[in-house]
């Protein structure tokens, strides 16, 4: 299954971790999937949590996930059903957290201005391409070792399998 299709949620630049998952919940909601999903993007797009569907993706601008190191900013999206985040660029801790929790993170600045919420987008992992609206956009292949962590479902599963 190297080609998959997804529905897009589109956001802007500098989407920070406080609007992805508010700081006030960080010590009271850690791992509960239902609670995590319920508060996803609460302070950015109140419609998101109720309407996100399994397999959706986010396309956003530069510096996605800047701010806190809280991993709930990744896991709340995973539990909301998100399959991938595609962004112009990522904040570094967010990128690490995404891969470490099995969320596909793709840096692809060229697609950002070409899709809108509700568009359908295809991810082709083998060809390192995204396709939408009849156009295709290439992204850099992920190093093998990183792909291994992602494919294992995250760093914990990866380390457990190695032991």
């Amino acid at each position, binding site marked *: 299954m190297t080609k998959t299709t997804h529905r897009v949620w589109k956001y802007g630049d*500098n989407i920070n971790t406080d609007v992805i998952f508010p700081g006030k919940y*960080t010590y*009271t909601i850690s*791992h509960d999937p239902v609670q995590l999903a319920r508060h996803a993007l609460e302070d950015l797009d109140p419609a998101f949590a109720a309407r996100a569907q399994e397999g959706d993706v986010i396309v956003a601008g530069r*510096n996605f996930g800047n701010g806190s*190191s809280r991993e709930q900013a990744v896991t709340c999206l995973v539990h909301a059903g998100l399959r991938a985040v595609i962004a112009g660029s990522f*904040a570094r801790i967010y990128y690490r957290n995404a891969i*470490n929790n099995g969320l596909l993170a793709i840096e692809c600045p060229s697609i950002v201005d070409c899709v809108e919420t509700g568009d359908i987008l295809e991810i082709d992992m083998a060809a390192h391409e995204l396709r939408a609206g009849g156009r295709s956009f290439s992204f850099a292949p992920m*190093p093998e*070792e990183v792909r291994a962590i992602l494919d294992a479902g995250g760093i914990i599963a990866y380390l457990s399998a190695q032991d």
Partner: protein
Amino acid sequence: MVSEFVGGGYAKLGPPCQQIASHTMPTLTEKILARAAGRKHVVPGEIVVIEPDVTLSHDNSAAIAQIFAQLPHKRVKFPERLAITLDHAVPPPSPKHARNHAEIREFARAQGIQQFYEVGRGICHQVLCEEGVVGPGMTLLGADSHSPHFGWLGAFSAGIGRSEVAALWATGQLWLRVPETLRINLTGSLRRGVTSKDLTLALIGGLGADGAAYMAVEFAGEGLAKMTPDSRAALTNMMAEMGAKSACMPPDDTTWRWLRDTLARTRPQDYEQRLDYFEANALYPVADAQVAGEQTVDLCQVEPMVACPHAVDNSFPLSEVAGRRVDIGFIGTCTNGRLEDIAAAADLVSGRQLRRRLLVIPASSLVLRDAAEAGHITALLDAGAVIGTPGCGPCMGNHMGVLAPGEVCISSANRNFRGRMGEPAAEIYLANPAVVAASCIAGKLTHPADL
């Protein structure tokens, strides 16, 4: 594309990067990482595995312990390298928070974690400096985004996520991409009433919230030599808001004096040995180290700055936004909750009354003690300020001073994101502590000189 993962991965490493030229002009960051990785030298872009001297976590330690429990490793590999501080919601505001703390205490006891700092001791970044847990040349990885903080002591430190910290507890190792370095040369000196916080807001406003993404920031220049320890710490701390992986500066006489004075108080039994260890461990950049980018700032030109809602890089000179409404002020956090910050506020409010609420939360118990001894706490209380327990307070919206819908806060913290202080319909402005105090005296955004 520069990405954390380019060129390698965790644990199982591929062949070393293609073009590893002989690197004879290393930055401070490269020198520290090379030694930590057991290598002669490292180059930017390369992936290295290090065993950090210190792994930091705080109120998130219970959640990390739950992730750790999913791993086959039952014991923390190097318990003596962990440092845990209870600071983010202290004292606990709810039974849930209290249970979280209890779980962390139990974990620390069971795993034999000695470097454990209780409720009220202060914020992790401040406490680990004061306690001599981190010093020059050392490496720290922390489950906190302001981990670049420790670079003011000449250490390498960076933030990572909770799962990675769990992996680090289990294996003692983590991979890192060697960052490119952005050098910031400081010339001249700050004018009266202008602080290192203003410098950071000017830098972040100019270069953007991702202006140093994936990079190490290194401060240098004769302007740096004149800066106090407290203001240096604010500088490296705030580089997290510019996307930096780490930030540092070479230790100098000011650093050593601060370490000696502070450690003599916090660990009188062994501070001499600890300082000897730091001195043997300290590293310095070579002159003219090769860097990927360079900025020079004439400190005389920096003005008091304010970051307006809802982004740190949305910053303006105070002169352009003075007069805007303010409902409450907050002085505290790992960025600006130190003695110098509280002293600046106390000096301004002495003999005056506050027109707006002002919440002051010292960054540590040591800071609180010094502020009390110097009479600053009395001055603040007399003017009508509120003093809180050392810790993070409302910085990330947990408790103890969160905002109501529509309220406008002026804060000495590091982030003004929507909802950061608990309420999305509130507004947060960031400034230096004197501007916060002056604004609470005047009831609107105000330069201290205009009082």
